[in-house]
Each structure stands twice: as structure tokens, then as C-alpha cells.
């Protein structure tokens, strides 16, 4: 009897409270779900997450933003084509050493103060002098000192460069040099904190398309449209009146939400779910290979046995590329293997990465391994971090199986993210997989940031005089033909040295309601909600 009564009670409780989700007409609201969290409102704060970068481009304006181009029928950001944002126009002097910006006369911060060249100066000074992330980024565009920034008049601003640098303008369009309301920020600064880092971390002083309505770190962020903003392409405010970003840790739940129509857009689903939703055809799935990223298998080139070129090459020929690509990504991405190069020379040098002339060839692999002095093979560990486990785990299992065939015994190591970063930073992982992303994916930028010096991002710990020399030369090479020639040498050299094996560029699967329009893949791999609208 008691059991029956309890069961009835339980059912009654469930039925009385679990009503259908509120179906509001919410055409003007965009609900975005993500697995990650925003941890600061100022993108310059050390430790900022990628989602924090995404948010700051909605609440702040930059002088310029990237234009867009089509890549295989999908819209992606364009590194070489700028759209004015707070700047109305800009001119570059013939010697390439001076960039003059004309600022918009009508731009205002959220509190109504007009945006002037003084604000631009203060913000850029802050990005290169304060203890912020901007410093390390902006120096890749030869922007290193406050002396380079000059206020000409209230709406004219000048940047001088020590050398003509191809990436100077591009660096002004990344997330760090956003323009702050300097009067407001200065009023919140203290003697110990002259750049108001503490205050700006929790507050916004911008002119962007959206204003923060509520911010609960790790839960939700709600944005309200700034009706006065007119920096979009059509000189109109952004299309959505409200944007809700919610943190939903479970990927399967995110897939459910967007499929049911409760969420409008998500970009971090598992590859299986994205493929599944695409097949069902109810939603719009835009799958863009992340052309500024690479996933690779890397070795520490300084420690045995991976200091031997033949060992690295043997592994490169022993990897089961196709199987790994299918198992890890379900084929969602752009492969970087299986190309044909004539006479071992790279076919192009204008871009990096390019597909490598590699395919699985166990006979060749065994031959190389014997030549390296390991006819019986050896034992090693292969590491990846927990955060990547979804793709890295199946890949590692296939790699282990295939390498066993040429005698290399692999023990798979799955490490917590912080531990993996620490070991990589200390150069203590012999053999592992990682992914890299370059915000400004020009050929020389990749080589300069990922193949030179004892820094963390030089995953393979490569130390090659030629690569260093050519990459530095390419940076300031104004002639595009010469630049491409240098790139060709670099790409060829990269293949010859095999410091690490590029595998593929994973796709970013943006899954959205079919009514959503205007999605563009952005450099910071976040959604620029200002582009989106509902049909």
C-alpha cells in the first residue's frame, strides 16, 4: 500500500511541476549555448578565456575589424581586407611607416561621451605598456611603445612604425586594442593600478554594439542592444535586441537544446552530434575548416629518440591518417596529408599550412626506423590533455595500433589540461598531440611563433638556423613574389626536417536554427553576433 502511495505521490509531483517550457515569442532574442565560460569583461586581463574575447568584441569597438571572404562557399574572416569600425577611413603613407586614422564624428560610448582620439591613444598606450595580454600580441605588428601613437586632433590619430610591417593593421583589428572610454576608466584608476585593470575586469567602458545587462561568470551573460551603435555594414544597430549566452557543460544537452529549438546557435558540439544534426536536415549546419588552425602530432626534437630525423620520418609514414581523420573528426575538417609534391618541393609558399606529401607506408616506415638504428623499435609515451579527449582518444588508440606494427610500443597518457601545459612549457613531453591557432594566419607568423626559440609555442623545440633566418626575412619582405619564394623554401624545409606532423584543420561546426543568417567564421573562433540576423 505504502509503495503505491509513494509512487502516486512521485508521479503527481512530477506532473504538477513539469510544465512545457515557456514558449515565448522571442524572435528578437538570440540564445547561444556553450560549454565554456567568460571570466573577465576586459580581454586584456591575463588568463582571459576565448569566450571573454568573443564578448569584448560585442561590448567594445576597435579602430578596424576584419572583412570577410568566401572560402569553399563559406564566409570566413579576411586578413587582408579591413572594415572601418571607429575609424571612418585610414591612409598608409607611401613608405609604409605612418598610418593615419580619421575617426567617426558620431561615435559615442555607452554613457554618451563622444569617442575621441584621446580615448584611442589611452587604449593603445594601455595595450602596449600595462601588464596586459596586448603587449605580447601587438609586438608581432611592430607596435611596442606609446611613443608610436599620436593624437593629431580630436578625430585624427596617427600610428608610426619603425619598419613597414604587414601585420601592423591586422594587429589593430584583434581583440586586445579595443577602445576604452578613457575618461571613465581614468576616474576608476588608482595609484597602484593606473590602467584601471581591476575595475575594467568587472565593468565595461565601451562603445560597442551591445551593453551588458547581467553577467554571472560560469552561468549566463545577457546582452542588450546599443540602439545608437551604427558601425555595422548597413550603418544600423545590430539585428538582435537581446543576446543570451548560457554555459551548458554537457555537449549532448547542447545538441538537444538546439535541436529542440530552445537554443538558437551553438559552435562547440561534438563532431558526432554535428554530423547527426546535419543529416536530420532540420537545422542549418555551417561547417568551416578552421583555416587558421592546425592539429598535429609533435615530438620533442631535442630528446632521443626523436632527435633522429629518420625516427620522425618513420612515424610520419606509419600514421594511419585516413582512419584517424574518420575516427577523431568523422571527416569534418580539411586533411593536411595525402598531397603530391613534385621532386619533394612545396608547391606553394604564400600560405602555411599546406597538405603534406604523406600517406601510410609501413614498409618505408620500417626501413627508416632500421636506418635510424632502431630495427627492433623502442618504447615511448604519447600524451594528450583531457580537454581534447573527445578527438585525441580515438586518434591515440589508432596511432598506438599502427606504430606497434613497426615495433614502436606506445603507452597512452591522458593528462589534466593544466598538467599538460606545464609539461609542454618545461619541454618534458616527448611525443604528443596538440592543436595551434594563429589569429593572423600569415605564413611567416606561423613560422615565427611556432618554430623559433625556447618558447612554449615551439612545441617541437625546433632550432634550425635556416627556418629562423627565412621566417624573419619574410616578415618584412614587401614584395609578395619574394615572400612566396621564401615561403616555398620554408614549407619544403619544414617537410624535410619533419619537426612535427600536421594532420588536419578541424572544422568549426556552427549549428543554428534555419532562420539564422549571416554567420561568419572569425579569427578568435567565437561568434560575432553583430553579423547575425533572423530571417
Amino acid at each position, binding site marked *: 500500500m505504502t509503495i503505491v502511495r509513494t509512487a502516486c505521490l512521485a508521479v503527481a509531483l512530477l506532473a504538477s511541476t513539469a510544465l512545457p517550457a515557456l514558449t515565448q515569442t522571442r524572435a528578437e532574442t538570440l540564445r547561444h549555448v556553450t560549454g565554456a565560460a567568460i571570466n573577465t569583461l576586459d580581454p586584456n586581463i*591575463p588568463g582571459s578565456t576565448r569566450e571573454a574575447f568573443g564578448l569584448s568584441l560585442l561590448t567594445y569597438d576597435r579602430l578596424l575589424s576584419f572583412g570577410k571572404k568566401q572560402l569553399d562557399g563559406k564566409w570566413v574572416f579576411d586578413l587582408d581586407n579591413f572594415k572601418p569600425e571607429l575609424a571612418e577611413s585610414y591612409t598608409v603613407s607611401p613608405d609604409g611607416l605612418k598610418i593615419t586614422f580619421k575617426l567617426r564624428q558620431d561615435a559615442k560610448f555607452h554613457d554618451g561621451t563622444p569617442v575621441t582620439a584621446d580615448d584611442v591613444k589611452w587604449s593603445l598606450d594601455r595595450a602596449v605598456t600595462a601588464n596586459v*595580454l596586448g603587449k605580447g600580441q601587438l609586438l608581432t605588428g611592430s607596435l611596442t611603445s606609446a611613443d608610436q601613437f599620436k593624437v593629431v586632433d580630436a578625430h585624427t590619430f596617427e600610428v608610426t612604425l619603425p619598419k613597414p610591417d604587414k601585420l601592423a593593421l591586422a594587429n589593430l583589428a584583434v581583440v586586445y586594442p579595443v577602445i576604452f572610454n578613457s575618461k571613465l576608466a581614468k576616474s576608476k584608476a588608482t595609484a597602484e593600478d593606473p590602467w584601471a585593470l581591476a575595475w575594467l575586469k568587472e565593468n565595461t567602458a565601451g562603445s560597442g554594439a551591445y551593453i551588458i545587462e547581467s553577467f554571472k561568470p560560469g552561468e549566463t551573460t545577457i546582452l542588450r542592444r546599443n540602439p545608437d551603435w551604427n558601425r555595422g555594414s548597413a550603418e544600423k544597430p545590430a539585428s538582435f535586441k537581446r543576446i543570451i549566452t548560457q554555459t551548458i557543460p554537457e555537449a549532448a544537452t547542447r545538441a538537444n537544446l538546439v535541436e529542440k529549438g530552445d537554443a538558437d546557435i551553438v559552435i562547440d558540439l561534438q563532431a558526432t552530434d554535428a554530423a547527426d544534426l546535419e543529416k536530420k536536415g532540420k537545422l542549418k549546419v555551417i561547417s568551416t575548416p578552421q583555416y587558421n588552425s592546425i592539429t598535429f602530432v609533435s615530438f620533442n626534437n631535442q630528446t632521443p629518440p626523436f632527435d633522429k630525423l629518420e625516427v620522425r620520418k618513420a612515424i610520419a609514414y606509419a600514421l594511419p591518417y585516413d582512419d584517424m581523420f574518420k575516427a577523431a573528426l568523422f571527416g569534418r575538417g580539411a586533411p593536411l596529408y595525402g598531397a603530391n609534391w613534385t621532386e619533394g618541393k612545396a608547391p606553394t609558399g604564400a600560405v602555411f599550412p599546406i597538405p603534406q606529401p604523406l600517406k601510410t607506408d609501413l614498409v618505408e616506415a620500417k626501413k627508416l626506423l632500421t636506418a635510424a638504428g632502431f630495427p627492433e623499435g623502442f618504447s615511448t609515451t604519447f600524451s594528450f590533455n*583531457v580537454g581534447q579527449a573527445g578527438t585525441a582518444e580515438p586518434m591515440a588508440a589508432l596511432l598506438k595500433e599502427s606504430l606497434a606494427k613497426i615495433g614502436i610500443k606506445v603507452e597512452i597518457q591522458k593528462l589534466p589540461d593544466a598538467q599538460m601545459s606545464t609539461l609542454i612549457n618545461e619541454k618534458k613531453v616527448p611525443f604528443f598531440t596538440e592543436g595551434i591557432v594563429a589569429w593572423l594566419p600569415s605564413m611567416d607568423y606561423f613560422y615565427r611563433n611556432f618554430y623559433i626559440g625556447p618558447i612554449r609555442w615551439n612545441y617541437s623545440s625546433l632550432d634550425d638556423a635556416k627556418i629562423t633566418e627565412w621566417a624573419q626575412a619574410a616578415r618584412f619582405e614587401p614584395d609578395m613574389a619574394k615572400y612566396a619564394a621564401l615561403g616555398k623554401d620554408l614549407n619544403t624545409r619544414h617537410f624535410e626536417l619533419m619537426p612535427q606532423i600536421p594532420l588536419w584543420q578541424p572544422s568549426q561546426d556552427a549549428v543554428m536554427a534555419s532562420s539564422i543568417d549571416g554567420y561568419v567564421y572569425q579569427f578568435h573562433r567565437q561568434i560575432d553576433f553583430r553579423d547575425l540576423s533572423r530571417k
Partner: protein
Amino acid sequence: MSQLSTTAKRAGWRFASSLPALFGVLVFTFLLMRVLPGDPAVFFASGPSAGKEEIEMIRQQMGLDKPVPEQLVRYLGDIGSGNLGRSLTTGQPVLADLKSRLPASLELTFMALLIALLTAIPLGVAAALRQGSWIDHVVRFICALGVCVPTFVSGLLLIYAFYYLLGIAPDPTGRVDIFTSQPPLVTGFLLIDFAVAGDWEGWRAAASQLVLPAFTMALFVVAPLARITRAAMLASLGSDFVRTARSLGLPPRKVIVTYALRNALLPVLTIAGIVFSTMLGANVLVEKVFSWPGVASYALDALLASDYAPVQGFVLLMASIFVVVNLTVDVLYGIADPRVSVE
């Protein structure tokens, strides 16, 4: 009166004697976090252009550039002044994070425990009364099922059935539907806050969000509670006073509820106390699956990132809660069985 003062004295004594343990937990967690491989500064310095300077910057910001003993002294000093440090994962002070997240966890755990007790005690009693019958077997089967199915599986299953297929549950995205406005903050417990504000629409929304996660959690802890109830009931049903009561011809209801059950409640209380503390910290999977903004998932995220301050804060909080729960159970003992408090 004298009973009350004895209980109070006992509680006070218990509390004082747990302070050294709390201190030990504090120091131990502090050292453990520093011994773990994984440098938070390197992890958080993950911007595309992060170099050595940035890592140093974060290290300085976290005070990690100082020697460990000095860090410990500073940390203890901070705790003395009520400052638990700042989380790098959320960018907020740990105290503020815990304050806003603890009510979410507590509300869920209380609700789950309530459901579990309401189910487990009748089940256990029924199983004990009809020992060996089909009822007993059914109860055993339910318990086994509850324990065998991991919470994230049952959670995902419930979501799939009630949200995805049937569409009668709201979307599993936290404590209240995103389009419902939050009640003014009074206790942090949404059901109470909505009731205080008189917003019954909101109360309904919050309650409907609570049902699935609470059931998921309850499912897992019904088994230990029901089993212990059954065992304790069997012991007390077989004892002399029940036989005496029966032979005196007291009504069965009085025999079972007043005499047998009350005597059987002590072990159930103990287990309920333990279950409660465990649920609060260990149900990280339920919190993750239902996007519940509780303390357990907060601590897990911090742990993966080697973010020291939140993990230390969480362990301290859990230890304190454990102490409080033990105290409460002690006091409840006295109420359930007056003999206990006369020491």
C-alpha cells in the same frame, strides 16, 4: 531543560573538537594543491601570444612567486580575515562564487534527500515487514537498479525521455528558465525566495527545473537508505519490546510506527547524514548534466585548471558542512532516542 542544555553542551564540545581537524584539512589541501603536477599560471597564460612574461605576470598575481611557507602563512592570514582568494576560472572572489553557488547545491541536495527519504523509509519498512516476499524482492531490485546506474546515465536518460521525447520537462539549463526573471535575493534558495516574493509562476518554473536533477540524485541514494531501514527494522521487529507490545494487543500501526520504527531510526539518521554530505560534493555529474550552477562542478572545473583558491575554498566549505551535518545528526539523535543524550 536539562536535556536541552546537555544537548547544547554536547554540540558545543563536538564543534570545538572538530576545529583542529578543520585546520588540518586546510593545511593538507593547501600543500596537496602545490604538490599536484600542473602549474595554473602556465595553464591560464594560454593566449595566442603568451610568453614567459605573461606566465610570470599570472604567477605574481596569484602570489606563487613567493616560497611555499610564506604562501601558507599569507593564505591562513587571508582566511582569518574572510578572504578565500580569487578564482581564475570565473575571475570572481572565491567567497562570492561559493556564496552564490552553495544555495543551488543545497537546494538540490535537500530536495533529493527528501525524495530519497520519502521513498526509502516506506520501502525499507515494507520490505522488513514482508521479509522474503515479492515486496522484499521488488525493493531489492529497485535498490540494485538505483545503485548500478551511474547518475550521469540516469540523468541523461531522464532528460532524453522527459525533455527530448515527451517535452514535458523544461530544458535542463540550470535553476530557472532563462526567460523567467529571478526573485529578489533573500536566502538564495529559489523556492523560498519565489515564495517570499509571492511569484508563484516563478516558483513553478524553479520547481519544475528541480524535479529531474533531484530525482536523478535521489535514485542513487535510495538504495543505502532503504537497505539500512530494512535491516534496522528487522532488528527492532525481532526485539523483546515489539513482542511485548504485540502480546499486549496494541494496534499494529502503533507497534510498527511508534515502537519499531522510532527505534530503527538511529542508523537511518546516521546514514542520511553521511549521504547528505557525500551528495553535496560528489554529485558533480548531476550538476554537469543539468548545467546546475552548484559548488561541485565549480570545484571540478577549478581542479582541472589547477586553480588553487577555489579548490581550497571548496574543501574548506565541505569540511565545515561535514562538521555541521554531524552536529545536526547528533542533536537529532537526542530527539529520536532520548537515552542517547544522557551520557
